[in-house]
């Protein structure tokens, strides 16, 4: 079994600035140690996929990064600043730079697609001109290929469309880091591939760094620059998709057997 590594030295993003730095992070819920000792970094412009069984704490980890959950101890720096000590103002500024795509999309079901996309813009008061806002909404919807859905309610959209609108809502603030919580879960293989390609397209167009939580090996193969396997509260393996797939370690290669 590959030991946990703290230094990354096997990818092309090594020279980029470190945007997320996590060291010895711990989090427990009611005495259950979900995250025991997490160490990882994410470089600028890099897509990192985290694999792991359900309920192992992958979502907890990315929720810690945006301050939705506070870790019990450990280092957690985003853009060089410690998240845990940030006040609400600093946290709000951070959250405009870090996008989060929820597993269930979390679209506001009382609002139309347009209002869903307007919401983060108006809340952050970066742009107030309605024409500019409209232009941004149309632009971001063109990127996800759903301009026609602008006046629809979330209940009128399919699973894949909701996922795309969720991505569009995150992209509208032009985040520098995007956290995807199981972006292809519950989608058919074709739509999953479309979403995976969209993640890749976003990486190329917006030059954003990403952490992608996934069970979907096809998604991991398409989107990842580097992969980590979370097991029993620590990162047990690390490498590119091919490195891990061709690993001599039986435990690691077992993750790729269904492919």
């Amino acid at each position, binding site marked *: 079994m590959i030991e946990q590594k703290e230094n990354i030295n096997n990818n092309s993003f090594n020279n980029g600035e470190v945007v997320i730095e996590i060291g010895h992070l711990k989090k427990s819920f009611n005495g259950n140690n979900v995250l025991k000792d997490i160490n990882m970094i994410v470089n600028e412009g890099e897509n990192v996929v985290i694999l792991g069984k359900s309920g192992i704490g992958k979502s907890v980890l990315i*929720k810690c990064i*945006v301050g*939705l959950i506070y870790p019990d101890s450990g280092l957690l720096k985003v853009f060089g600043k410690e998240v845990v000590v940030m006040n*609400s103002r600093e946290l*709000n*500024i951070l*959250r*405009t730079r*870090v*996008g*989060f795509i*929820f*597993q*269930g999309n*979390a*679209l*506001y*079901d009382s609002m139309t697609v347009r209002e869903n996309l307007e*919401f*983060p813009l108006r*809340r*952050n008061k970066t742009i107030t001109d309605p024409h500019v806002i409209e232009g941004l909404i149309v632009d971001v919807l063109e990127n996800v290929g759903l301009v026609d859905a602008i006046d629809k309610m979330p209940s009128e959209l399919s699973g894949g469309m909701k996922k795309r609108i969720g991505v569009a*809502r995150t992209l509208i*603030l032009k985040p520098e880091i995007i956290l995807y919580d199981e972006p292809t879960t519950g989608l058919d293989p074709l739509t999953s591939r479309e979403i995976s390609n969209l993640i890749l397209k976003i990486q190329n167009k917006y030059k954003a760094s990403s952490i992608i939580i996934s069970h979907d090996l096809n998604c991991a193969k398409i989107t990842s620059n580097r992969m980590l396997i979370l097991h029993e509260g620590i990162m047990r393996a690390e490498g590119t998709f091919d490195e891990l797939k061709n690993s001599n370690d039986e435990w690691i290669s077992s993750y790729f057997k269904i492919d």
Partner: protein
Amino acid sequence: MLNIKKIFRNKATKSNHDEFDLSRFKNTERFLNEIGGLSRFTSIFFRELFRPPYEYKEFLKQSYNIGLSTLPLIGITGFIMGLVLTLQSRPVMTEFGAESWLPGMVSVSIIREIGPVITALICAGKIGSGIGAELGSMRVTEQIDAMEVSGTNPMKYLVVTRVIASTIMIPILVLYSDAVSLLGSYIAVNMHGFISLPLFINQAFDSLHYFDLVPATIKTFFFGFAIGIIGCYKGYFSGNGTEGVGRAANSAVVISSLAIFIIDLIAVQLSEIFHVFTM
């Protein structure tokens, strides 16, 4: 044989007694946790209430939702309440030869007690459960988290607006309900005789004093606040899944209904004390 039975019976009784005590302790702990949680939630509400930015648009939207959507229900129940109360009281009043006191008796009953309490209970059922279910489903589908990561304070945007809207709209709904109830009472009086509307209003308001109106109106603000804050609290911290949403809506109604009676009890006692001191 008899002794063994007796011993078993004693043991069983002792064991049941222990379990009963333990469960009672757990319920007490749960109750105290709930009170603590609600108190903390209320203190956060007051902290966010006075801190800018203020969510005027969402407040107006919630006031419209809470006020206007409840108006027909309050109107119908208020009208029936006034009508039934008058029809039920009429035989007794007639028997004592006090039929002419009917408008006064009904107006005092409705404005002092029945109107505010019944209207608040209806609002607890409609508004409290609505807020609990809405925020509960937003919590379950991670919409509250999404709001937070998009740089919006959900406490300010969702909770403060709904609680303030409920605190302001419920007294207005109570006043509307009182007016419609008196209209129902006027119609009921006219079913068995004739009384002109100006005379009915004159008789109804002759029996009312300053001390009937003011405490009855003040307590409705507390009713509105209780309905809003309890609905928001139960929804905001609802459990996972549809079961959690259902439970949040249900407990929002149960706890706010109980709170209405407790507030009413306190309000009546305080107004009595105040009345004695100012006489």
